[in-house]
């Protein structure tokens, strides 16, 4: 016990903490249990069976949706990180550096405003809505998270490495490739994971910028819940849960917390 005994009502504190864990994990636990349900109805328990996982595996629709989601997520991650690295490395001009603040604006705006603005822009210039517009939207979302992270890490770096590289005759491009990117590797991996998770999870921008023809996973689940869920969704949700747990484990092994975002 460190300072717990000095807290007001010390016996209550662990109970309240336990309550939060129960609140967080009971719905997830019930979901996982019901994904192994035999019944045709998603919410009625009949007996143990893994048949919905085989249904999930053999559903071409879900593979297609997953494929869309992954294309969008990886493209958004690649684009936003490439642009962020270029911005941070080459943005030596004062004017460019001062414009850094503009990237915070998209984080402070409700996502629905971003989505409506993008939809309006696409209709105005009659850009067909689909995978491309999804990638544009998710890259915008990703930039807002990635630039602050990479910028902060770059500021912490010892600039002497870069100066030494330039002094020894390496071009800026070589310095970027062989010095800066290896030094920033943990931050780059962390940013990539964050953009992947945000993009795979995003609903609002996908809802506005995809036009229903190109569905992503969250939209697929949304439509399924709306039209009366089938037990396949239970299995799909459980798989997604497992996937994100694996991602977090990867992440914590990198010793970078998402908390870094909030600094």
């Amino acid at each position: 016990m460190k300072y717990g005994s000095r807290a007001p009502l010390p016996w209550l504190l662990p109970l309240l903490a336990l309550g939060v864990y129960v609140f967080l994990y009971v719905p997830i636990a019930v979901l996982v249990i019901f994904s192994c349900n035999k019944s045709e109805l998603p919410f009625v328990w009949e007996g143990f069976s893994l048949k919905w996982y085989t249904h999930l595996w053999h559903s071409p629709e879900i593979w297609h949706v997953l494929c869309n989601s992954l294309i969008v997520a990886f493209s958004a991650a690649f684009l936003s990180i490439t642009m962020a690295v270029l911005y941070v490395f080459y943005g030596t001009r004062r004017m460019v550096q001062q414009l850094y603040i503009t990237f915070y604006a998209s984080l402070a705006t409700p996502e629905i405003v971003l989505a409506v603005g993008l939809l309006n822009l696409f209709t105005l210039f009659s850009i067909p809505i689909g995978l491309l517009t999804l990638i544009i939207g998710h890259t915008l979302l990703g930039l807002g998270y990635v630039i602050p992270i990479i910028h902060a890490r770059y500021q912490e770096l010892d600039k002497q490495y870069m100066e030494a590289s330039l002094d020894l005759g390496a071009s800026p491009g070589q310095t970027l490739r062989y010095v800066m990117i290896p030094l920033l590797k943990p931050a780059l991996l962390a940013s990539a994971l964050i953009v992947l998770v945000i993009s795979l999870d995003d609903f609002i921008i996908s809802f506005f910028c995809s036009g229903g023809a190109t569905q992503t996973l969250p939209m697929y689940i949304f439509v399924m819940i709306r039209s009366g869920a089938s037990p396949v969704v239970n299995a799909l949700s459980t798989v997604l849960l497992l996937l994100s747990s694996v991602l977090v484990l990867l992440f914590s092994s990198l010793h970078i917390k998402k908390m870094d975002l909030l600094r």
Partner: protein
Amino acid sequence: MTGLSKRNLKQLFREQIPFFLSIPSLIWQILFFYIPTILIIGLSFVAMTGYGFTLYNYWLCCTVTYAFIIARSLLAAFITSFCCVLIAYPVCYYLALSIERAKNFLLFLLILPFWTSVMVQIYAWFFVLERHGLINTILLRLHLITQPVALLNSSIAVYIVMIYCYLPFMIMPLYAQLEKLDTRLLDASADLGATAWQTFTRITLPLSVPGIRTGFFLVLVPSFGELAIPALLSGGKQLFVGSVISQFFISAREPHLGAAFTVMSCIALAAAVGLMYMAFSWFSTPAERNAL
């Protein structure tokens, strides 16, 4: 400018390469965030029939119904944020200041739901709130109720799930703040004879205000524009800002009205955020107030 030969221009261009390489992200931001935002604001002043400046869109949106929808969304966002503070504070305090053992593991468990898809989180709550779901089953078994209670399709369901989904946004900044609290201050306070409550209200709580503030805004802003949770759980009975905006733009295809409504709700949100910011600076320590 005649002095610039072709070679000089080439030279000039080569010197500018770093500049050109640095601006794609800025261009992206301007093209897909600032220009669309300006277009939305502009659109809200354009007459529905075509061209010309008008305030008619705003006039159409100035009805009691829409005012109620904005007020309801603000209320929901505030209730969500307040409940998140109340729920997150004890557990963050416990993890940051009370325990040593298994701290990292418990923190990991606390953050994990943040990484799971929001849609999965919403779906999980159906199993709890359903007519034959967990809560109804438990209450029936305990003979507290004789018939299942309809928990889905109510504002209670919307609030519970909003709190559930946004709780991690409160936990992270709050935990970070409490973690870096200088515990010597608590020692000093206790040594000087303060009771536990006095130490808490005069030292711990004021020093955690920055974390609470960050978390509060991280919850308030996105929960104001939340779309999926009300759409799935309110049963269409109650409209929130997100659902109205999506109706205007997607189903009704009235972008002019939608733009006016979006601008109005953003102004309401900005006013609420400004007021809360002032309220927080009132609660914070004098030293911090000077820094602001």
